[in-house]
């Protein structure tokens, strides 16, 4: 092949086909935030990673801001079923680039059909995750997707399969993995610094009761039917408890859209628990749980919950709302030589502080080092390496919470085959592994 042969292939197509060169000539294959080196030296437009944001509510906008901070990224479009959201996101993008080029969409399908993208950032209510993520993978895009991976185990599996089918790069919004003290905690645990671990606690936030139903006219600019998508029909209403008159954010306390705090946070502290134990590609074999459910109001996910998950190697992970656990929020591993607790805010403590001074030798396990969660994604888009939180790993952390949800709902212990991903001997519980979708939506 001649080195200067003129190919018809565009750079976009190259990216889709699964390979993309590093920032040519700069000698810096690592992705650097614009803030770190100023505005100069931005890669030529043809070398930037062209992105769109699907879902630009609170989390989506926060992720969008992060991506805008990378000089290698060019955000060209935003998509949201609420025009108020997409409008605000467009202003943000346009302000960053000093133009008015950012395009807005209501329907992700139109976005995918019209835009020539390399990657997307998805931050939608959980019930939408699978449909959009699979569509993006099918379109050959790399994906930064929010946790939890999906609303159900079946939907999570569909995402993993689609990502694998096209060799896509996937980063989950489980950003704690890119915080040094979380990684440090996990490395200490996985290398036996607290001995053999038998028991783990993952403390997630407490839930609460919701407001009474309050139907409202659909706000101007919101496509309510599209917001509902595959979820059962319900008329537009106020999901907030403080008179916010909106459905955004607070949908996560309603089972049609999310499993509540336990599924909202499993992608963080359960994920970390798995990471420290090397269990991130498997799951529990037995799950039991109790939940306290609201008796009034529109929220129907558990306010308090406690799920006990036993793994094939005998380890038990208890996932519960923080008030029920001695260490509260965060992950705590208990080994026969001591314990380690890790949480946000740089909190890393142990039964004996000397444990925290231990070094990890070269022949021991060194966990994936990512120091910037978004940067790690972008770097992997370039190098085609796996990210610090690939889809399969996210699928396994949310599976724990989803199985806990099922165990609480059916009120009995369930047995799980983590390899086949099947509930054993309980067809009624097995029904809850998926949620039938409202027509015409399907994966």
């Amino acid at each position, binding site marked *: 092949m001649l080195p200067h042969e003129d190919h018809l292939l565009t750079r976009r197509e190259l990216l889709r086909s699964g*390979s993309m060169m590093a920032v040519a000539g700069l000698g810096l294959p690592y992705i650097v935030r614009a803030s770190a080196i100023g505005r100069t030296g931005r890669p030529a437009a043809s070398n930037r990673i062209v992105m769109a944001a699907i879902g630009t509510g609170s989390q989506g906008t926060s992720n969008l801001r992060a991506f805008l901070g990378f000089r290698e990224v060019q955000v060209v479009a935003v998509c949201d079923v609420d025009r108020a959201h997409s409008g605000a996101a467009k202003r943000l993008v346009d302000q960053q680039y000093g133009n008015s080029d950012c395009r807005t969409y209501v329907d992700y399908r139109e976005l995918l059909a019209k835009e020539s993208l390399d990657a997307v950032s998805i931050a939608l209510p959980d019930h939408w995750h699978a449909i959009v993520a699979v569509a993006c993978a099918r379109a050959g895009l790399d994906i930064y997707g929010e946790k939890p991976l999906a609303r159900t185990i079946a939907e999570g599996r569909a995402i993993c399969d689609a990502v694998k089918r096209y060799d896509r790069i996937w980063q989950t919004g489980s950003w704690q993995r890119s915080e040094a003290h979380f990684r440090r905690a996990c490395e200490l645990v996985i290398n036996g610094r607290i001995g053999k671990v038998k028991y783990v606690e993952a403390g997630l936030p407490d839930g609460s009761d919701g407001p009474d139903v309050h139907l409202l006219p659909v706000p101007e600019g919101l496509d309510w039917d599209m917001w509902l998508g595959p979820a059962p029909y319900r008329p537009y209403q106020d999901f907030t408890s403080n008179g916010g008159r909106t459905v955004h954010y607070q949908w996560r306390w309603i089972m049609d859209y999310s499993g509540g705090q336990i599924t909202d946070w499993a992608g963080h502290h359960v994920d970390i628990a798995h990471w420290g134990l090397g269990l991130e590609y498997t799951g529990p074999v037995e799950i039991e749980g109790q939940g306290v459910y609201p008796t009034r109001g529109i929220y*129907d996910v558990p306010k308090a919950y406690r799920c006990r998950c036993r793994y094939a190697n005998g380890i038990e992970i208890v996932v519960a709302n923080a008030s029920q656990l001695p260490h509260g929020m965060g992950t705590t591993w208990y080994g026969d030589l001591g314990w380690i607790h890790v949480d946000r805010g740089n909190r890393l403590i142990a039964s004996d502080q000397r444990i925290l001074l231990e070094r990890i030798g070269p022949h021991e396990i060194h966990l994936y080092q990512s120091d910037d969660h978004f940067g790690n994604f972008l770097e992997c888009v370039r190098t085609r390496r796996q990210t610090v939180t690939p889809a399969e790993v996210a699928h396994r952390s949310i599976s724990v919470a989803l199985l806990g949800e099922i165990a609480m709902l059916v009120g009995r212990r369930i047995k799980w085959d983590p390899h086949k991903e099947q509930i054993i001997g309980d067809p009624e519980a097995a029904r809850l592994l998926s949620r039938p979708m409202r027509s015409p939506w399907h994966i």
Partner: protein
Amino acid sequence: MMRRTCISMSVAVLMCLIAGQATSQPTDQELALIEKALPTRPVAEPKSSRRLLVFDRCDGFRHSSIPYWDKTLELMAKTTGAFEVQISSDMSVFTQEGLAGFDAICLNNTTRLTFNEQQRKALMDFVRSGKGLIGIHAATDNFYGWDEAAAMIGARFVKHPWTSDKTVSIKIEDPDHPLTRHWHGQGFKVNDEIYVTYPPFYDRSNLRVLMSLDMTDPQTRNVAGVGPDDLDTGISWVRSFGRGRVFYCSLGHNHHICWDPNTLLHYLAGIQFALGDLNVDTRPLPYPNNGRVKDLAELLEKASGYDFDKATSAIYLVEQTIRQLDEDPAYRLATEQLILVHLKAPGSLAWRSFLCKQLSNIGTERSVDELIQLMKDRQTADMAKYALERIGGPKARQGLLQIMTEVPVETQIGILSTFGNWRDRQVVGKIIPFMDASDQQLRLGAVAALARIGSEDAAAAILERMDRADQSFRPILADAALQAAQAMAADGLIQQAIGVYEKVYESDRQTYIKAAALSGWARIDKVNATSLILEALSSQDKGLAAAACGMVDLIPIPVGRAKALDMIWEVPEEGRISMLAAVARTKDRSLIPLVRVLAMSANVIVRMEAVKTLGAIGDWTCVDQLAQLAAATKGGTLQRVARRALVSLDGEGVDKQLIESLQTADPSVQCELIIAMAERSTPNASKALIPLASSADSQVRLEAQRALGQLAQADDLREMVWLLWADPTQAMEEAILLACRRLDAVQACTDLLTLIYDASGPQASKAAALRVIGKLGTDKGLSVLLDQLDSSDKATRTEAIRALAGWPDPRPMEWLWQIANQSKDQTERVLALRGYIGMVPMRQGSAQQKVGMLQKAMSIASRDDEKRLILSVLPDCACMEALAMAEDALGQGSLKAEAESAIVRLAVPLIRQQPDRVRALLQKVRAGTEDAFVRQRITQILRRGNID
């Protein structure tokens, strides 16, 4: 044909002969018994003169009780005047005209009646139009092949484990009902034959069951042939059918039933109901009619007004009750039936959706018919599907297939998606035609379903259409084919999956789809993976070649991988990183030489990736190269990468090589080797490092000293102490301390240091030794330090005081106190006081005692620094005295911030002891502070105090 008819006829004759005696008429004595038992007046006044057709034909078994019942009904008509009777066994009566004069038909133990089309219509029309149907005992042994009629009468015979010689217990389910109230709710025992019938004909969501077998009676329960499915065996029931009325009672095999007064009264009321004279409640009852089910029924009743704008409490109660459903089959059945009763009744969409959700969790085949009905209405279709998809099973499949063509497109898409989620291979043939539908969404739905099912025939149908599809549809079909192949591979159908991948790979033009096909194929085809990927690497399709680079790890044989790596300069630039990343995943050591060459490349990107890859697959042969690289790229990203690679090198001989290379390397390379050794905790490295710790090169010296902290062995300590003496650097002090703690050698090391200290030497060396002795904190070290307090040399004394002040336990406190009070030297006083203050919390004793010491310290402290230090340790002596001391300090402007902080920290443990005092103080601090964090923290504490 003829012969068979003859046989069956002769069987019938034979049966009549056998039953000959039994078919005889009741004797006079028996007639007297019947007459005596019969009611003498109607239960309700007839609204007009009523005519009852008693039909007693048998095409199957003929019961001997038939003439008894014929007679009983004739007599009943006379004694009560409620109706007139006409008896017939001629099928020709079933015409519109033939039935015209009757108000009801009573099937007196008829068996296996066969109705032709006209006769069927006549009977159906008769009942639906508002007339009555009564069944006695074997009346349910009919309507084979005519489900609608079996459902109308509410049963079809299955078996009769309770034969005519058995005595069974019967319970009254509906004690206040006009047909049963004469039993006053008292169950009874009866000697009779009882029929078992099953759903769907015996369906409690349609029937109001008045009596049933009492299975709590062991004599009834423990009869041979009675299984768990027979727990609900109804005895009598009423129902509405169209505008008509149906009454059935199972009693009446044995003749003596005809002279049981209560049963006869039951029949009379039932007949009068059927005739239209007795108005009774026919709404289905919850079953079993016990407390638990009644409770659920009540909850459902209360919740049934639910709508989207209504409060949720009532439906939550229902939901929670249903969630607690246990294994008790009767209760499960009852729950499902109750839901169905409500689903059939009018209700809001929200309510029906809610009920469908409940069925999605606990529904069974019994719910399928009703849900299929709801599928036909677009409004309820989605939620009906919600339930049906989860219930599953052949009946649901059949029901969905039946309505598939008659429902709107959106519903069709939903059904397709359900078939897909079931991965139901049996419906593939039914789905395929929808791929050619004119509606695009419908087409997509069919393709998605087939892709999910992923059977061979599904894949074949997808592939077949792929070639002739237009530009927009083709990628969708290609994706579906890939998805199907993925499913096949997972199901173990490897050859079939390969076939699909091959077809997509060969025929698709879109690079990313081609690449996906190649990757899927190479993953499962060990035989061809090598040639496939190598070919793709040199493909004219640049994108495909680049994608293939990332698949090098899928090549199963090392030679193939080496070939691929050899092509790195021929593949598109964009693929080189992913090729090296793929090589890293292989952990294939045979590729090391090739990668080492790339690690020297002028192409900086390839070089960087190659270095990383060496870190993953490299061995001892890479040591020198990586160390040299790290040394040559000072401060750059490449240095970071090379260092990390050197540390992560695995396999035998790496550490040995590091030590060996140390002997001959240049100083800058030596530094890299030493850094790597320290990181790796290289064993047996200290002997090589000791000489370097006094190297002429300052950087080498520093790195070697640092590394010794990590790597020194017990017998190296002597050397290290000498080195410290010779060249007292901070790095060596730290190395000795670290090594001592690591090796648990503090005593031995103190001995060494003491020994050397007593020798004469430079001041700096002595000071360094004292510092280390102090930090090691041994008994011997303490006495050495105390001895130095008398030293005439000021520097020595100061160093000793400094070491004592940093002592790890409170033993030197008394000496420090003396110095703080008595020394003439300001520096010595300050050092000693600071040490003293720091040791107060470590001391044994009560918090009050400790606060006493701190007060003493406060009284001699001359500088704010020490006063602040005192305030900062106060919270470690939690008692009210400490709080008072902090409060005193509040007034001194320069101490205010520390005082506030101390009060806040003390408040947490003390607020329970003296809530009022602590709260008052906190409020005072909150009012006076300028620190927002303090304010916020106080607010938190005060709030928490309330909850406690």
